[in-house]
Structures are given as structure tokens and as C-alpha cells.
């Protein structure tokens, strides 16, 4: 279980502090929590605060009761937090197999690599020896990023807009990956998303607006309040571009 208590984050911009997150308090103890909201509402910042990439200006974070606010990215990762980047990072010379091995924390064999890659719809044979570099498409990188999270199998997995930058065909496959993950996970999954189909499999939905929790609750309570709003339509349009 992950708890955020009164998280504030101000970014310095042109000499002026801009409040990106304002007094955000959340409890992530459902199997699948979706964070949604308009662009610029602080969703990605919130995900980075959880992973330890961004330090909050004030507030505390607890993982299963332990205060992890002052822990580094590495220490949080070792305690069981995984973070999937919105734009996966490329590496020259590091192969898909290397990266999944690093994620799993041990050398993995081809059968194990194949297991993780087939979960995300990639044929292991074609990919394990490929470098995680510019030769891979955005959709392929995204799936490999998700495979690294599966290989880690941690208590809390945070996905920052997994749908961003992938085509519609890949998107359909991505949804089935998350549906399967939902069925199999023993931990908590938190996804930042604008996609109705992702929100549709969430147990809990949190809506962030202007750096504040605007509303949160079960899917049945929240989803009807989002669908059809101008904000959501604009975001759907963005996906279709």
C-alpha cells in the first residue's frame, strides 16, 4: 500500500515558484488505480514524486507504513516501487535481454526473457539480442519498458501514460496487456492515463486538476463524471492524431 500525505511540489520557473502539486493526499491500496486529468494537471510529476525522481517540497510518502520520503530512487526501487517511463530511455549497446536481466535483478535465460516479452506481445527470438536504441520503434520501446516492470514484479508499479506515442494497433494490444496484468497482479498498479479503455479496468479513479485532487472514488462513481466532458474529449482527440 502506498500513501501520499499532503504532497506539495513547486517548480522554479523564471524566478517564480509554480505550484505543480498542491496538498495531494492519496492512498493506493486497490489493485488498479488510474490517475487522470487534463494536461498540465501534475500527473507525471506525481508519478515521479512516487519513484523518487522528483523530491516534493513538502509532504510525506509511505510504502506499507514505512516513510520513504527521504529515500533515493535506488532505495525506493529496492523496496518495491517500479516506474515505467512515459518516454522510454534508449541505450546504445544494451540489449533487450540485458535490460530485462537488470530489471529482474539476475541473469535470465532465453525462456524467461521469452515469457516477459510474449506477455507484451513481442516475439522474444526477434528481440532479445536487439539493442534498446533508436532502431526500435516507439511502440516496441514501450512494450519493452512494460516487460521490465513485469520482470521486476514489485509491490507497486507506476506507469506514466503507457499509451502515449503509440499507434492504435499497438494500443489495442497494450490494453490486453494491462487487462492481463490486472488479473495476475498481487501488488498495486497505478496508471496515469487519458484513455477510457484503461480507466474502464481501474478499481479506483483519481482526477487531478491544477495540481489538486479534484475527485476520487470507484470507477462506477468517477467514470461517468469524466466521460463527455470537454477535457476528456480533447484528450481523446490527442490520441487519435
Amino acid at each position: 500500500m502506498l500513501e501520499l500525505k499532503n504532497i506539495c511540489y513547486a517548480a522554479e520557473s523564471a524566478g517564480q515558484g509554480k505550484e505543480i502539486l498542491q496538498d495531494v493526499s492519496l492512498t493506493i491500496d486497490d489493485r488498479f488505480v488510474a490517475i487522470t486529468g487534463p494536461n498540465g494537471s501534475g500527473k507525471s510529476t506525481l508519478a515521479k514524486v512516487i519513484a523518487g525522481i522528483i523530491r516534493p517540497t513538502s509532504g510525506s510518502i509511505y510504502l506499507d507504513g514505512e516513510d520513504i520520503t527521504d529515500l533515493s530512487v535506488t532505495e525506493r526501487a529496492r523496496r518495491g516501487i517500479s516506474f515505467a517511463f512515459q518516454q522510454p530511455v534508449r541505450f546504445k549497446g544494451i540489449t533487450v535481454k540485458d535490460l530485462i536481466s537488470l530489471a529482474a535483478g539476475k541473469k535470465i535465460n532465453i525462456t524467461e526473457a521469452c515469457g516477459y516479452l510474449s506477455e507484451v506481445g513481442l516475439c522474444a527470438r526477434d528481440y532479445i539480442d536487439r539493442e534498446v536504441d533508436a532502431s526500435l520503434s516507439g511502440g516496441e520501446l514501450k512494450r519493452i519498458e512494460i516487460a521490465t516492470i513485469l520482470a521486476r514484479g514489485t509491490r507497486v508499479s507506476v506507469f506514466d501514460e503507457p499509451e502515449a506515442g503509440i499507434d492504435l494497433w499497438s494500443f489495442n494490444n497494450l490494453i490486453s496487456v494491462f487487462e492481463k496484468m490486472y488479473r495476475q497482479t498481487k501488488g498495486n498498479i497505478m496508471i496515469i492515463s487519458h484513455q477510457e479503455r484503461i480507466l474502464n479496468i481501474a478499481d479506483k479513479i483519481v482526477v487531478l486538476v491544477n495540481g489538486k485532487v479534484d475527485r476520487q472514488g470507484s470507477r462506477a462513481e468517477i467514470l461517468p463524471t469524466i466521460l463527455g466532458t470537454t477535457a476528456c474529449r480533447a484528450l481523446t482527440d490527442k490520441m487519435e492524431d
Partner: protein
Amino acid sequence: MDELEKMLLMQVADLHKVPEGAYNIRKDGETDGRRSTANIEIVPRKDGKSGIDIIVRPFTKNESVHIPVVITKTGLQETVYNDFYIGEGADVLIIAGCGIHNCGEQQSEHSGVHSFHVGKGAKVRYVEKHYAEGDGKGESVMNPTTRVEIEEGGRMEMETTQIKGVDSTVRVTRASLAKDASLVIREKIYTHGKQFAKTDFSVDLNGEGAGADVVSRSVAAEESSQEFLSRINGNAACHGHTECDAIIMDSAHVAAIPCLTANSVEAELIHEAAIGKIAGEQLVKLMTLGLDEAQAEEQIIKGFLS
């Protein structure tokens, strides 16, 4: 051979024991073992200079030649001339390398001058590793010079690796290519401490359809410095590509100077050079997988030079 010499052989030539096929092992300035085969002849030079001639008969296929050098005597300085004659249509692997263990106070130095005559349609893969170690104050210096002439339709792939240990190196490579000949060079260098490494490639693409691809990846750490010069001269309808990709760390220095000369309107030449530190997001990504910063850095470098 003692354990130390065996270890150096392992480092430069992946050899645990006497290799298969033709070989010449040079130890502290002397020949320590040599074998010719039916198709590959290794003989001392006739001009009185130190070194050997390696003659590969035409159409010799799938054979290899190992010519490692190990130096464990401090203060030994030598220049060795090895000439390779690769017959028409042959296809061979040549593994060279130099390992220095310098525990003394004086400078140990090996300068290998290798000349390749690659015959018509012949293929050569040339692998060269440099390695040095030792806790003495004496420096380990290696200055390899490689001269390559490739006849029509011939091909040479050259992989050179120098990972740590060598205090100073100036690597000079000169190549000239005839019609439809090709040359691929892959260089990997890691320097640290106060080491210095300079590479200087110059390739003349003289024949129609000739092609060269010269790629260097390097990491300069601590106070080390590197210079990369690469010149491709396109003298006919040809393709040339040169690339230098360097990671710079700490207070190291890297200079990359690619140079292209086209003397034919049909010459297609490209150069790329990039120098930069390890990207912060790469470190963060590996840290989200549970690695600490030093481990993340090590993995990134290991991958980059793999």
C-alpha cells in the same frame, strides 16, 4: 610459460592453450612458439627487421592465425614488422594482440607495424586487443600502425579494442581500396587515470564501388585524454562513412576530428561525431530498476563498449 604470461595471453587472444591453426607467439622480444599449416606459412622476415611474414595461400577458407605478443620485462622497447599476404579468394581470421605486464620502473613499449596485402576477392577479419597491467611506475606504451591495401572485391573487417591499462597509445591506420573493395573498422577504447590515446585513420577509396565504414566508440574517464582523427578520401564513385561516438566523464578531454575529401562527384561521404556525458535519464532509468548510480554508470559503459 608462467601463469602471468598465460593470463596476458588470455586477455589479448582468449587463448587458454596452444591455438588451433597457424600461430606465432612472441614473448619479451623473442619467438616463443610458431606453427605454419598447409595453407598458411609463417616465416621470419628477409630484410633483417624484427618480425614475420604471414603468407595465406589463395582460396584458403575458414582458417585462423594467432599472433599474440606478451611483454613482462620492464623497460623492453621493441618495434616489430609483420606483413600479411592474403591470397586471392581466401577467407581467414587473424587474431593479434599485445599484453604488457609492467611491474618495474621503466617504460615498456611495443610498436607493431602490420601491413596487409589483401588479394582479389579475399576476406580478412582482423581482431586486435591491447591490454596492460602492473603496479610499477613504468608506463605501458603501445603504438600500432596498420597499413592495408585491398585489391578488387576484397574485404577487411578490423576490430580493435583497448580497455584500460595502456598508458599511452598512438594508433595509425592507413588504407587504400581498389574497385569494389570494402573496409569496416570498429574501434573501442576506454581510457582512465592520466592515459592518452590517439587514433588516426586515413582511408583512400580509389576504385569504383569501394566502401569504408570507420566507427569508433570510446569512453574517457578521470584525467585521461583522447584524440580521434579520421579522414576518408573519396577518389571515385564510392561510399564512405566515419563516426566517432564518445562518452566523457570526470575531467577527461576528447577531441574528434573527422575529415572528408571528395575528389569525384560520385563519391558519397558522411561523417558523424558526438561527444557527451552519460545521459541523466539513462542513469535514472537504471536506478528505477534498483541499481545505484555507480552500478548504473558501469552498465551503461559496458553496453556502450560491448
